[in-house]
């Protein structure tokens, strides 16, 4: 075999490999979500809520037309909550232009500390498009209960500042206000972006 023959065979092998990969990717199922993602099929109509943003009242129905990524947390939290918000910001970056069709919402489980204006200050450091919501104790408790979010204030024996136990799952609602995906805590931004891409019909 001359070196030309060897080179020719190599080039042919590369072309076949790339061709097969493209063909296989094209055959990927349309509805494919992350392995840790819980998919609700069909999506479950979500309860409306009435909460407060720094700019005034917000109801879920006001967000129709955009997919809603919903996280419950609190601004006193220095670890898990910022980690989640940072990953959501990164996920939207990865989505590119489609990010305009997604609204990230963080609802506080700690309305005692978190006013609507404090929520805006908190979420805007991750992404100015994020919406931070608060409300009365009753309003927050109702929406958390409606969405299956456990939350409890934990007082400290040593008199230090209290913390909140809360469900760290992220919920995804369709643009018509139906619960469709659940992301467990710790999901990578790449997986969230891929799930949103699939959901948006990409």
């Amino acid at each position, binding site marked *: 075999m001359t070196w030309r023959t060897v080179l020719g065979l190599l080039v042919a092998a590369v072309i076949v490999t790339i061709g097969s990969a493209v063909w296989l990717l094209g055959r990927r199922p349309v509805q494919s979500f992350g392995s840790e993602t819980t998919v609700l099929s069909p999506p479950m109509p979500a309860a409306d809520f009435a909460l407060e943003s720094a700019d005034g009242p917000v109801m879920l129905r006001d967000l129709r037309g955009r997919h809603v990524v919903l996280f419950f947390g609190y601004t006193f939290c*220095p670890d898990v909550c910022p980690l989640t918000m940072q990953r959501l910001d990164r996920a939207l970056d990865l989505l590119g232009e489609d990010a305009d069709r997604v609204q990230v919402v963080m609802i506080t489980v700690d309305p005692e500390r978190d*006013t609507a204006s*404090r929520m805006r200050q908190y979420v805007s450091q991750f992404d100015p498009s994020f919406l931070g919501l608060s409300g009365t104790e009753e309003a927050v408790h109702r929406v958390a209960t409606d969405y299956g979010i456990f939350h409890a204030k934990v007082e400290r024996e040593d008199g230090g500042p209290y913390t909140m136990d809360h469900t760290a799952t992220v919920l995804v609602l369709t643009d018509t206000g139906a619960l469709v995906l659940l992301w467990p805590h710790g999901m990578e931004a790449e997986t969230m972006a891929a799930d949103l891409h699939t959901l948006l019909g990409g």
Partner: protein
Amino acid sequence: MFLSGRARMSVLALTAALGPLACSGTPAGPDIAVEHAWARPVAAPASAAGGGWNSAVYVQMVNRGRTADRLMAASSEAAAAVEIHESRVEDGVMRMRPVAGVALAAGERVTLEPGGLHIMLVGVTRSLAVGDTIAVTLSFEQSAPLAIRVPVEQR
């Protein structure tokens, strides 16, 4: 070691002269090294409602010594108070609790990382932006306190 014969002889002589003090590579007590420290950025706008803003410091600690030690506390010029906390997610529920220190067995490496053990900065005294550095002092049960410079990083 690539030492000439004479150099090797003098090293041997020095070792013999200083005895066990210099000869042992591993100190008799604990010997803590801190690596890969970073702090989470936080914007701290002036806001009376809800109190101050918090952040967290993450480090890796290695006990290269022969006996155990324990991280007992930390302090920083960048926060009103500093506490050692642990976040844990059980059945989807996030729980954050103060812990009474972090055990460092001889030879052990302990990693403080997001979603787990962290040094919590309670009430930062200023905004912490990427590129800033803060001073943190770690206090141990046995070893002398360690003063470290911690870069603020987006990770």
